[in-house]
């Protein structure tokens, strides 16, 4: 029973996939497809941050790498199935290299955040600086700041000419979202997932029990990268466009916002939050309000109202007032010294 309950969230997603095309207009379908690809990306971050305690500020890097990998592969091979695979593989491999560097170099949490952010900015600078036509991979020009445009949509596997219809793409986006959600829940419930949570709870203890903390972190990091890459591929397929903006700070901050708002430590919450915030953001763009002002305020509000780390969900708790406890004690750089001395 409890097991079934933890998978329950796939039901509304699948229901939406089933009835969506008969309820929404075409624009609604495209928009939900878009939202779903972003929700997929945020699942990756919610997983690695919430379950493993690894805060990657550069989640957008994997999303963008996946998006570029899809665009480049599909333009060259004319077959979206390979492109989707490439979009999963490229960020995953990249995350292994980066993860080796971060986790085996014993880089601390804060620095890990900054380094992942730097990597994202390097990718942003690099892709922005590829305007010259000499930057191309096969038939795909990298396009610099303008990005790669008119990227082919998804096609039926094996038939490059047969593009999927909007309704089918919509269903695929949601079904993939549901599947990845279920897979991550399953992973969380597996032995490996339980060890990952243990690593989040106490790295030291896990290490002393003989678990190679670095390996589990790298594994989780790669899983999140692969999920983000898949999301990047679908996003590019839906929009037909990818550019350096996939790597920008704005994108990175959105992912974080959705996880905070949805509740760190859960998976369904961030997905719901991503849908809500994307809708609000789109809505604000036609309302004449300064979106920076509103979003900045929302982020601050959510963070301040978030009672503790790992509160599973914030929904319904928004009005609960936070007591400014734990003022000083948790916080001292000398805590490390205390630990290491006798």
């Amino acid at each position, binding site marked *: 029973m409890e097991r079934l309950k933890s998978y329950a969230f796939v039901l509304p997603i699948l229901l939406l996939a089933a009835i969506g095309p008969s309820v929404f207009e075409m624009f609604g379908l495209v928009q939900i497809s878009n939202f779903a690809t972003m929700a997929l990306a945020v699942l990756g971050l919610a997983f690695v941050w919430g379950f493993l305690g690894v805060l990657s500020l550069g989640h957008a890097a994997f999303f963008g790498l996946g998006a570029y990998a899809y665009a480049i592969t599909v333009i060259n091979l004319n077959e979206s199935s390979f492109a989707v695979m490439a979009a999963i593989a490229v960020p995953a491999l990249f995350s292994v290299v980066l993860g080796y560097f971060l986790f085996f170099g014993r880089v601390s949490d804060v620095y890990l955040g900054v380094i992942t952010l730097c990597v994202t900015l390097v990718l942003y600078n690099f892709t922005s600086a590829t305007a010259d036509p000499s930057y191309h991979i096969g038939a795909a020009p990298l396009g610099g700041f303008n990005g790669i445009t008119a990227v082919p949509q998804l096609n039926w596997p094996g038939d490059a000419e047969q593009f999927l219809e909007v309704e089918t793409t919509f269903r695929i986006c949601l079904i993939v979202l549901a599947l990845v959600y279920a897979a991550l829940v399953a992973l969380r419930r597996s*032995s490996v997932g339980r060890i990952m949570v243990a690593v989040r*709870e*106490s790295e*030291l*203890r896990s*290490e*002393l*029990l003989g678990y*190679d903390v670095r390996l589990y972190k790298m594994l989780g990091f790669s899983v999140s990268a692969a999920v983000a890459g898949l999301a990047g591929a679908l996003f590019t397929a839906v929009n037909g466009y990818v550019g350096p903006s996939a790597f920008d700070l704005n994108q990175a901050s959105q992912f974080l916002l959705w996880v905070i708002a949805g509740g760190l430590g859960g998976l369904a919450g961030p997905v719901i939050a991503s849908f809500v915030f994307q809708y609000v953001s789109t809505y604000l763009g036609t309302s004449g309000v300064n979106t920076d002002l509103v979003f900045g305020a929302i982020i601050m509000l959510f963070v301040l109202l978030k009672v503790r780390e790992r509160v599973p969900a914030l929904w319904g708790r928004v009005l609960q007032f936070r007591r400014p406890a734990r003022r000083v004690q948790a916080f001292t750089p000398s805590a490390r010294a205390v630990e290491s001395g006798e």
Partner: protein
Amino acid sequence: MTAILETRGLTRRFGGVVAVDQINLTVNEGELRCLIGPNGAGKSTLFKCLTHQLKPSSGEIRFNGRDLKGLAPHRIARMGVAIKNQIPSVYGGLSVRENIWLAARRTHYGRALDTTVAKALTEIGFETAERTAAKVDALSHAHRQWMELGMLLVSEPKLALLDEPTAGMTRDEMLKTVRIIQKLNQTSTIIVVEHDLEFISLLAKRVTVLHRGRVLVEDTMDKVAQNPAVRQIYLGSQWQPPTSVPVQ
């Protein structure tokens, strides 16, 4: 008797302070060794060096004849060295059962895993489902210590390092801990750091006294208790060994 643990010239410095100074220590298989010494003698630092939580500044550690140099802490754990640190390091946000499961998981699989966990829970006195489902953060100090011992039990180490397993316990609780440790000693070699002398005399056959990072003396409890230098720095000259309490 074969030596399971040997250190040669093991040294650890913190800046100008030498916390562990040229320690040569040999512990034989199946032994239950006590480490005593005043605060700052280097006991916890020694333990942390043995498990590579701290990197030794110099010297050699051999476990089962194998040099540990350069191994990550988890590799040493996998060789069969388990430690209970002085400050409880458990998964505070997880339940008792989950904690034990995580400790057993690396060496047990399938059904054996479940039975081992269940058995260990009984041994350390967490029988009811309610208690095993409790978050560790909510446990009393003694229960948290026992749970940590339980984690050691299920990981079936060759060598267990226990840093102050009875700190803050009542006498009854201490006696229960002694039983758990004796049980553990049936299968594992143990080194235990303690201040509670009753506890030591109940358990230990051989005692090593550390002082200012060095081995002051190593002998049986009785002999150690008679040693004037030990009495001077640690026990106080009026100290008498406690009368033994029969332990079941």
